[in-house]
């Protein structure tokens, strides 16, 4: 993080977000950008210049409101959609673009989708769903394959596995379906598991079980997990590192507890003030207002400035670099820039 102090104006420093660990991360993305064309030469700036590293045996949470680009980021990491620019590195090696390389990549990186009610094909049994990745990526066949399917179902607490394997998705509850989706992801023994809001469609009572399952997988399988969510409380519960996204950009990242206890970016503060807290007796006082900006014409400078209670003159003109604000914690905000300290203090004092 030390290299990003006082960057030269105009050149964005490459800050790699994600948990800090020794060695090569299982999956690393460098400068991922995705612009979706929407006709007449316009594009949606869904994801802008994000670098993120996912070391093994860690959980990285990506937090943000709807439309902040967090799902797009997860899909970019699976290779499902091609980035406009940027590259992916698996174990430090760039991922090839040939069909063969991409198929090999699919055995190492898996995506668990948000809605367990549509991520399983109602025409196939649970066993079929688990069997397919095994058949695609391993040589296990016959009785051994059946045993493996049962073992995987048992691992995600669907027991007896043999009975569940014969069932069809419509015979399962939402939590059970999500477990099937996770078991399918584990079948290929991936290095990286990307979970796109895996619990948001589940009943509150079931969420904890699924979150604990991820927690167990981090330890037992040494998986690098990317946990995309809009629920900052569950991110704190599960994740090592939280990455906060706003309008396609990372606004703040750092260790989960630091982010939730001492948020430095005004947007993170807004998110946290909006999170429900049963101990709070009156309605929360939201720090900031408004709604996310258009990603076709994003605001100039800092994309958060129209909603930011601390907005300064510089915020409208220049996009802030990622500035260190604590141990392994960075925030993309001019308030933390030494050059604007005086003005920042003045603005803060007014509020």
């Amino acid at each position, binding site marked *: 993080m030390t290299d990003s102090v006082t960057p030269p104006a105009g050149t964005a420093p490459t800050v790699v977000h994600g948990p800090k660990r020794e060695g090569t991360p299982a999956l690393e993305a460098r400068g991922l950008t995705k612009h979706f064309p929407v006709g007449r030469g316009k594009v949606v700036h869904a994801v802008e210049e994000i670098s993120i590293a996912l070391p093994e045996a860690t959980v990285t949470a990506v937090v943000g409101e709807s439309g902040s680009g967090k799902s797009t980021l997860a899909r970019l990491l699976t290779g499902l959609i091609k980035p406009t620019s940027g590259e992916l590195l698996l174990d430090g090696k760039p991922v090839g673009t040939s069909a063969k390389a991409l198929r090999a990549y699919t055995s190492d990186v898996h995506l668990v*989708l948000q809605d367990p*009610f549509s991520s399983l094909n109602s025409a196939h049994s649970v066993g079929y769903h688990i069997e397919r990745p095994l058949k*695609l990526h391993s040589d296990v066949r016959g009785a051994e394959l059946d045993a493996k399917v049962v073992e995987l179902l048992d691992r995600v607490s669907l027991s007896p596995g043999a*009975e569940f394997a014969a069932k069809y998705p419509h015979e399962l509850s939402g939590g059970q379906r999500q477990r099937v989706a996770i078991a399918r992801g584990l079948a290929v023994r991936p290095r990286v598991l990307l979970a796109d809001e895996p619990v948001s469609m589940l009943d509150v009572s079931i969420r904890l079980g699924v979150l604990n399952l991820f927690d167990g997988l981090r330890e037992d399988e040494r998986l690098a997990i990317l946990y995309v969510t809009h629920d900052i409380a569950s991110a704190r519960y599960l994740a090592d590192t939280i990455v906060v996204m706003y309008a396609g950009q990372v606004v703040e990242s750092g260790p989960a507890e630091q982010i939730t206890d001492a948020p430095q970016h005004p947007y993170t503060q807004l998110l946290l003030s909006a999170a429900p807290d049963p101990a709070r007796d009156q309605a929360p006082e939201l720090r900031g207002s408004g709604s996310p900006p258009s990603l076709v014409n994003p605001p100039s400078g800092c994309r958060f400035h129209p909603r930011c209670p601390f907005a300064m003159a510089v915020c409208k003109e220049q996009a802030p670099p990622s500035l260190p604000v604590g141990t392994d914690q960075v925030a993309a905000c001019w308030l933390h820039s030494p050059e604007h300290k005086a003005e920042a203090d003045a603005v803060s004092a007014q509020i």
Partner: protein
Amino acid sequence: MTSTLPTETMTGGSPATPAAPARRRRRHYPIKVQVGAGITLFFILIAIFGPELAPHSAAWVANTTNGTPQPPSGSNWLGTDNTQHDLYSALLLGARSTLLISFVAGAFATVLSVAMGVTSGYVGGVTDEVMSIITNIFLALPGLLILMVILKPLPPGDQNNSLVIGFVVALSSWAYGARALRAQTLTLRDQDYVVSARVIGERKRRIVIYEILPNLLPIVAASFIFTVIYGMGVYVALCYLGVVSPASGSWGTLLQTAQASGAIEANQWWWYLPPALCIALVGIGLALLNFGIDEIINPRIRSSRSKRRDVKFQLGLTPVVRPATSTVVEGEQL
């Protein structure tokens, strides 16, 4: 039972009997489907066994001197035509070519519409553009006229070949199904289970055949039956117009000879009414069957009919999404 985690999902102590052929309750289809299937089956049996059931051959004549069609009688149940052929036999003999060509046309048209519709829907891009244009052209062409142009120059051998005629009829009837299938494929393509299949590295062809096609089956089946009805209409029209005249005769040919000999003006109802009624009945039977197709093929309904009774179904019991009210998962509360 090696769960190390708290789980909300324990089914009762039912023993592991995977896919046991347990007590199957009798299926109860709606009355419409039963009637439709009955009518269709009846006519299929007639098409198969008609030539054996017919009391007389196609060449048989009651006598060679009388030029007047005879009304139904004990010896000729449906009377005779102006050349004294037995019309009851002709009706039974004509069933085979009529139904065979309708079903062949339906099968060819379905294969064509699945190939065109699903491919253009799934692949998208330029392929989709080109295939959609072809589909639209076929949709807009006046089918009967084109068929007459195609069929006239065919050698006589081909004019009696059910496969050739069926294929040609299919050419005029696949486009509608292709449009419907393309539209449905477009929505299925972005379903999460298709995305998941891509994530685990399934090949395109496998995704189309195993993930998308099973979910299109109700539409494919419905469009098959629809094209069978349509194909029968086209074939009868072609026979009635005299474009094709199969040696074994068909219901359309009967109508054509009746029309040509002025049977309708002479009020010789036994000549033109039975084949017309048969055509209408087959059409009604297939249409009724079509209503029930979705119910039979939909896996949810299918398995709720045939599986063990102790399974608790979760039809439509979707957990409600409550995004902002999650109060669990605070570290201290655990």
